């Protein structure tokens, strides 16, 4: 509602409206390129395979300084240093695993975007699964309880219906006999 209201107020009408809409869109689009900015280093690769491996490694390695970016995304000097190192190591013939080990030896597991499964990260990796299982268990228990309750209700129903019938029968016998009841 709150969003719809101002939209109605400024609803473009006629030529001026269209003009402002266009200007606004133009402004928005002119802002887009700054969002899509990426780091393009002037790296030379001796072959396409190395370039692909570089892309992959720079994607999975995390910038130690900025933390929420991988090194290909980050403008931090340290990320640039690490990109240079990855490039250098690739051309020195290191394989991916060795390069990752090289980084981990210096910056710890932290430098990996996907943390390895070990004693410290069990909770991180398996915690969500355990939580989902607990959730499922709770749902199952709730459903079962509800079913039992429903069965019990039904049982109660048939019992009370019988009783009700009995009472009604008595009443009709009574009222037809002595006509004491007002209704």
């Amino acid at each position, binding site marked *: 509602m709150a969003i719809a209201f101002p939209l109605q107020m400024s609803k473009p009408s006629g030529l001026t409206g269209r003009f402002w809409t266009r200007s606004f869109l133009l402004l928005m689009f002119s802002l887009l390129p700054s969002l899509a900015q990426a780091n393009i280093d002037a790296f030379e690769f001796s072959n396409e395979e190395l370039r692909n491996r570089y892309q992959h490694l720079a994607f999975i390695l995390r910038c*130690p*300084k900025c*933390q929420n970016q991988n090194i290909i995304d980050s403008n931090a*000097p*340290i990320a640039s*240093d690490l990109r240079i*190192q990855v490039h250098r190591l690739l051309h020195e013939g290191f394989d991916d695993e060795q390069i990752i080990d090289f980084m*981990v*030896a*210096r*910056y*710890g*597991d*932290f430098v990996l975007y996907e943390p390895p499964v070990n004693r410290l990260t069990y909770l991180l990796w398996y915690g969500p699964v355990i939580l989902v299982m607990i959730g499922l268990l709770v749902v199952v228990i709730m459903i079962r309880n509800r079913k039992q309750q429903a069965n019990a209700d039904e049982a109660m129903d048939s019992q009370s219906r019988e009783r009700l019938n009995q009472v009604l029968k008595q009443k009709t016998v009574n009222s037809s006999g002595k006509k004491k009841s007002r209704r």
Partner: protein
Amino acid sequence: MNKRLILFIPLVLFFVLGFFFWQGLKLDPREMPSALIGKAFPSFTLNTVKDESAQITEQVLQGKVSLVNVWATWCVSCRQEHPELVRIARETGIPIFGLNYKDERGAALKWLDEYMDPYQFSLYDVDGRLGLDLGVYGAPETYIVDKQGIIRYRFVGVIDRQIWQQELLPEVKKWQ
């Protein structure tokens, strides 16, 4: 009775979560453990800011508990930290080795001249190679290296009087 207790679950959950979030406020997400704790200081051969012909290796760190302080003239917080380092060097006699990280020799010399030099000497790591081997990700950083040349502690950020007294000095004493 049982049903009543169940009603308290959200309250209990609230307090449990609240406790963890409250603790989380005190954690510094930028603080990350060094991968080199308990490992030997990486080997290097470097000259120093003041002596281009020097050939210093990691051997120099052996024999005494020492501090290795990563600094640079482009690092604003290093300037803030500097007086405390000068004081530590003067008052405690603990050797401090500088690691001049990705800097310019001229600027570094001027800095040491202007703000005093608390370092035994400053290794001149112009390409940041030793910094990389150490896992440096932002100056200033300070390492405590024991008598065997093994890294025992890493502190990232500006050392002030309080941090020195409460965090670093006890750690230095532990290894002395």
